[in-house]
């Protein structure tokens, strides 16, 4: 459980976190969204007591400002940028198990679950490992202590799709009592892990709800894609522009897409048929997280705390 009261963080005259009051209940899976510079990383650093701040933060009932060490003992953390320790994976396991007071086999077990069996990888230098492998090792360290709170700062930003999949699968399987805060830019991750979403903007929480509520607030529609023949591609594109405007249409090779509400999709397809544009295939793709967040700011009337 995380509780913050009157949390303010300033860098000089710039207010990065502006009087935040919130409670994240035990077992909550919270995604933290926002444009770059919205204050996501700063918030996570304040929650761990790595930055001085005004107000109070309790992690699992422990005051971060006065008992930072004890509070951090209740937190597992994975940063966005993997730290470049000059040690082997085996030394990393030995060092952090000693530092956190947990048996090495617990970290080794987590590594195994993440596809990094220690008996094969212990001698590898961290500087020679890929960013994804180091992030997995850090996740193993974070999970091995079974902390009540997990803080993840865009942990898969540098991972390839396969590594991201393995990472998220392990994250989904964490204990249901664990409170999880995930700063992310990826919709698939948020969908997979989070049951609640916050949007930070200029240091304030401007949205607090589910992904469906965010979609509704953002009014970000899905993309309807069609595949037609090359010579009729421009006709299809023109029809879509007439329907939704040029900004909501894109084309690539034989493919054309239009972003429009679900109710208008059938009409769009019928219109193409009536114009004699052959449709070889069609499918629907949901909006990206960036589109939803952008849509929230453009159409959702950001700036007011909800």
């Amino acid at each position, binding site marked *: 459980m995380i509780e913050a009261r009157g949390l303010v963080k*300033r*860098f000089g005259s710039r207010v990065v976190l502006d009087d935040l009051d919130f409670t994240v209940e035990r077992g909550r899976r919270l995604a933290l969204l926002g444009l770059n510079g919205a204050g996501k990383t700063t918030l996570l*650093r304040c929650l*761990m*007591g*790595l*930055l*001085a701040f005004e107000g109070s933060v309790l992690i699992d009932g422990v005051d971060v400002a006065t008992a*930072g*060490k*004890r509070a*951090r*003992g209740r*937190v597992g*953390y994975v*940063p966005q*940028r*993997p*730290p*470049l*320790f*000059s*040690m082997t994976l085996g030394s990393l396991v030995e*060092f*952090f198990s*000693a*530092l*956190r*007071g947990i048996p090495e086999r617990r970290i080794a077990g987590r590594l195994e679950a993440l596809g990094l069996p220690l008996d094969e990888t212990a001698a590898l230098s961290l500087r020679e490992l890929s960013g994804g492998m180091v992030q997995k090792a*850090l996740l193993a360290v974070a999970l091995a202590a079974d902390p009540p709170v997990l803080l993840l700062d865009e942990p898969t930003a540098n991972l390839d799709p396969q590594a991201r999949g393995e990472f998220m699968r392990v994250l989904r399987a964490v204990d249901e009592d664990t409170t999880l805060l995930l700063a992310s830019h990826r919709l698939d991750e948020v969908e997979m892990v989070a049951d609640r979403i916050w949007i930070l903007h200029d240091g304030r929480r401007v949205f607090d709800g589910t992904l469906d509520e965010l979609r509704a607030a953002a009014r970000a529609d899905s993309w309807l894609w069609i595949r037609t023949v090359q010579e009729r591609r421009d006709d299809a594109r023109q029809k879509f522009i007439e329907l939704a405007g040029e900004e909501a249409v894109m084309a690539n090779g034989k493919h054309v897409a239009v972003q429009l509400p679900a109710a208008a999709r059938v009409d769009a397809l019928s219109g193409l048929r009536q114009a004699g544009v052959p449709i070889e295939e069609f499918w629907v793709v949901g909006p990206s997280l960036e589109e939803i967040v952008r849509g929230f700011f453009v159409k959702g009337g950001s700036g007011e705390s909800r």
Partner: protein
Amino acid sequence: MSRAEVLRTLVRRELGESLRSRWFVTYSAVFLAGAVALTLFGLSGSQVYGYRGFAKLMAGLVHLALLFVPLMALFPATAAIAGERETGSLEYLVSQPISFGELFWGKWLGVSLAVSLSLSLGFGFAGAVAVSGGTPWQLVALLLALTLLLAQAFVAIGLLCSALARSRARATSAGLILWIIAVGLGTLGLMGLVLHWGLPRFIVTIWAFANPVEAFRLGVIASLDSDGSLLGPVGGAWVTTLGAGWMIALCLVTLLLWTILPTVLAWWRFRRPQPRSPL
């Protein structure tokens, strides 16, 4: 985890990091080689000139230490905080259940131990040979203590640079500039400046004890040459006024202050989360 267990874990890591550092190993190897060579010369010299000949060659070892000991201390110390800040590992370390103070003192102890071990190896070999050649063990112990204190003073200076600088390169540059000033601007050089610009002479006296390298030099030579003939004008005058014993004590206190003050300042900078984080 108790504070002692956390410290032990951090010190072990820092010690290993320092001992694996390329620069540190290079300077340590050069110092060891120089110490061995000078000791062997000292042995042959002592057969011709007796203990006095050996003492003069020990002064050569001291000049070797003047150049290398500060560098051996500066490189791991300047990297300890600023280097880890650059690689992102500092933030990750303090996100663990440890306090800022434990991390700082773990680093200080680790670097100090690494430098002390390396110096004790080089000086220990020379000292053992010296004692077997008739040099009083108390003198060897005093020289070792002065050398270790000089190293600790530069560990402290390096850590302060590391805590204040935003990057490892800046921390190392600042440390090297201080080293050049300390080594390059000896008493004689400063006297030239005093005479050239007509500055008050007490500046030279203050400088002799404000500069850790100079304090080390005066302390060592006073212990080898109690009549002050090798000490130069300032040191000679001080030995005459104070006596060699007090002169050495004053040098030890100066070096101790140079060890304590920058360390405390560095700790003050690092000890807790800052408005602008030390991370």
